[in-house]
């Protein structure tokens, strides 16, 4: 997030895209709901009539995967009608002409059939957005989990720059991170192209710095591969030893059948986790980890806030902290790593070597933590990035994008679009929430959410078990008929194994981020004939 959750409380206008915030980020939603109550204007773009969409002054119930067409059309109107922040664009950005050229074709009339939204509504939203400054834009995985996910993000950023909304406390471009420490895992360099602190592995200077710091020679200069390629590499033997720490890949990745065949072909697989799960079945070695609250450490939230995690009880049996496991493994390989606690790792390594968090030490994290960039011991942390339009890279670059449809669209044989996500009462594959008393009672099984119109046409009754199939698989699942679903769309989650949406999802990925298109694939649903 360029901004902070605190800013949501005072927001004047919020444009929320692809974010079922009341279920996926419930506490952030409380601030937004309060803001709306206090007069904040809210525009929501989502194919479903979500809880938050019900509170919006305008709900753009767009077709799945049409975000770029919508955003381009909004920008087209804003430019056409001269509603953009010219001074800001002039002073702080580059590439405006390029953007103008690309979006010119996207008149509301042209975008309307792609998005399934009347042209007049698109034009009105453009004017509404331009009428309040600053306005905040926030999104979640509805924007990123597409084959055009990166372009979606570029388009969101372009809109906010065009309106002069980046760099204001009540503006910004704000991705709400799905998992608690996605931000942190990336900051720590658990990515194939960067070291901790975002220095590039391809940069010789950076390598030299880390070689010295870790006291090793010849750090690899070649970018690594991302997880989808790792998995694909198992059957082709490009990858022969694979180490999975903490993700139940067999359930979370698109096309479970294929993923399982990849995992089964691993020559050597290590799984480090809390529980046996569908992934550990394929492991050659399983290592038991300490869980949250069984170890000290830090998490970094969506607003870049580093907060402390503390020990409440001891891990069971011989389960050990993960950092300890890696340290001991390093020792077996002949490397004696000195840091012997989370605090030592952070204070003596992470914060020494990663410049953007150099000012953060455990001693400063007793209270509410600190938001990076925080570069020295007296730095207060940063609540707003790109302050007053001063972009980190100098000028904000408009990266215009053309709309592209999802990799798989509905057709005769598979006439429905399936979109997926999480629900309030569970988390991911339920390895944790499924073992919490009460949560299973609140949501004991998966459902396929469908519209009343489709249900009636297919003769499906509320609560009836139906079959949902895609080109990749088929599951039997309970139908939940709700007016919150538009015609032609089915929505499912990936919390339960038997009817996990990922038996159906399409392993098509954004070419840059390699994020899978969880939000769109083609399926059919049918009554089960006994």
């Amino acid at each position, binding site marked *: 997030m360029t901004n902070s959750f605190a800013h949501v409380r005072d927001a004047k206008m919020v444009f929320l895209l692809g974010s079922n915030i009341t279920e996926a980020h419930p506490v952030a939603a409380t601030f937004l*709901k309060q803001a709306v*109550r206090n007069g904040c204007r809210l525009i929501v773009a989502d194919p479903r009539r979500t809880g938050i969409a019900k509170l919006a002054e305008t709900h753009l119930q767009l077709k799945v995967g049409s975000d770029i067409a919508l955003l381009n059309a909004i920008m087209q109107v804003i430019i056409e009608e001269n509603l953009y922040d010219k001074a800001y664009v002039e002073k702080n950005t580059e590439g405006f002409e390029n953007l103008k050229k690309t979006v010119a074709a996207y008149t509301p009339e042209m975008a309307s059939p792609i998005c399934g939204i009347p042209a007049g509504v698109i034009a009105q939203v453009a004017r509404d957005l331009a009428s309040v400054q600053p306005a905040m834009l926030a999104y979640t995985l509805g924007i990123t989990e597409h084959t055009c996910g990166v372009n979606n993000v570029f388009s969101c950023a372009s809109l906010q720059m065009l309106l002069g909304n980046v760099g204001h406390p009540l503006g910004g471009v704000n991705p*709400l991170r799905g*998992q*608690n*420490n996605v931000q*942190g*895992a*990336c900051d*720590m360099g658990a990515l194939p192209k960067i*070291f901790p602190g975002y220095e590039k592995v391809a940069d010789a200077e950076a390598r030299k710095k880390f070689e010295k710091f*870790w006291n090793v020679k010849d*750090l690899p200069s*070649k970018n*690594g*591969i991302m*997880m989808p390629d*790792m998995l694909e590499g198992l059957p082709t033997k490009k*990858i022969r*030893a694979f180490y999975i*720490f903490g993700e139940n*890949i067999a359930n*979370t990745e698109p096309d479970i059948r294929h993923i399982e065949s990849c995992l089964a072909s691993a020559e050597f697989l290590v799984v480090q986790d809390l*529980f046996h799960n569908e992934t550990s079945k394929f*492991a*050659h*070695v*399983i*290592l038991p980890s300490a*869980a*949250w*609250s069984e170890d000290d*450490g*830090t998490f970094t*939230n969506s*607003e870049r*806030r580093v*907060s*402390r*995690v*503390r*020990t*409440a*009880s001891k891990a069971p*049996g*011989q*389960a050990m902290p*993960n*950092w300890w496991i890696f340290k001991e493994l390093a020792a077996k*390989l002949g490397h004696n*790593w000195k840091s012997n606690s989370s605090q030592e790792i*952070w204070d003596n390594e992470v914060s020494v070597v990663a410049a953007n968090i150099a000012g953060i030490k455990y001693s400063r994290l007793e*209270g*509410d933590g600190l938001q990076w960039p925080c570069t020295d011991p007296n730095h207060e942390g940063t609540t707003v990035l790109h302050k007053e339009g001063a972009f980190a890279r100098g000028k904000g670059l408009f990266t215009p994008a053309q709309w592209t449809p999802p990799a798989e669209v509905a057709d005769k044989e598979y006439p429905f679009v399936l979109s997926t996500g999480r629900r309030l*009462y569970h988390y991911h594959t339920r*390895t944790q929430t499924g073992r*919490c*008393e009460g*949560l299973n009672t609140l949501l004991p099984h998966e459902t396929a959410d469908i519209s009343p119109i489709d249900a009636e046409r297919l003769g499906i009754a509320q609560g009836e078990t139906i079959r949902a199939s895609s080109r990749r698989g088929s599951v039997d699942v309970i139908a939940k008929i709700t007016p919150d679903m538009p015609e032609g769309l089915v929505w499912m989650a990936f919390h339960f194994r038997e009817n996990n949406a990922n038996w159906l999802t399409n392993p098509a990925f954004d070419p840059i981020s390699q994020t*899978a298109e969880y939000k769109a694939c083609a399926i059919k649903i049918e009554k089960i004939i006994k």
Partner: protein
Amino acid sequence: MSYMTINGKKIEFRSGETIVEAAQKAGIYIPTLCHLPRSGHGDVCRICSVEVKGQDRFLPACSTHAEEGMCIETETPALIALRKHILTTILAEGRHDCFMRAIPNSKSPYQIAAMNMPHREHACPSDGRCELQTLVLKYQIPVKDIVPEEGDFVLDNKHPMITRDFSRCIQCGRCASACNAIQVNEAIPSQFGRRAEKENWLPLVNYDNCTHCGECLQVCPTGALSAKKAYGLSTKKDELIKIRTTCPYCGVGCQQELLVKEGRIIEVNGVADAEPNLGRLCVKGRFGYDFIYSKDRLTTPLIRQEDGSFKSASWDEALELIATKFTDTIEKYGADSVAGVSCSRSINEDSYQMQKLFRSIFKTNNIDNCART
């Protein structure tokens, strides 16, 4: 800055602050019961009444704004008598059995049933941290003289995580405000206003709107609302330890206060006023902690056998095997033939260590995390 005087002491306050807020900052205690900070809720129980010079009646400190030059007394004999009267009335209206165990008719049938459950010494789950109990002790209410009023009490045990025992409800309205003003769920109708309407009001939940966030549970000053899953788990009168930590679920990163007894979490609350959540939690943050105590936890390293079954191993054996396999693979097929995925739910320090292992020892950048799901 403006100034006023409390109990003869001159104190500073900011405009817009209530008397309670200003007093708190100055370290002066004024009792409150119905008041719920940051929600605008108060002015129901009158326990916070204070004397303000020039006013002919007592004013509720929780909902009266501080004003320049105000001259306030907080513990005069008249105020103490009023508080005693309020507390006595509250005790008589409900079934606050921690004090009235010896008095006949002082327990609701639910409480008696609860006391017969294993491992319980006390029927009330809030014993020891109840705000009503604290005030009754502080103002030395002669509990043995109290005659409980007749009455039936509602018990709502439908919720999987929360018991609502209205025999302990003091109709303060905090839960309704937490639900409506703070979580904005509007699941507890608050057609609730002043004392006159108080008679028949109960904070009954409309479960259609309830998101099970448990904010109501967190703010209830008494044992009326209690968490089911910790029930009967702490048997000893061990000290309750409070530990601040960060929620392990979504990217908001709410600050939690764990209540730990005998090395076990028995309740999770939001840390008041902390960024980013200002004391709020959602259903997972509040109730999603007990997976760590599951009997399914992996407790030893495991190595797969020829026949596909897993055999327990020592750390030494397991790590030796991994080290050998990775070294052999790298020797034979090069560093880029190995790969790893780190966990985006675990702590930063774990991810740092894992990428360090892959980069500095295995010499590959094939390290990623599960950020994209």
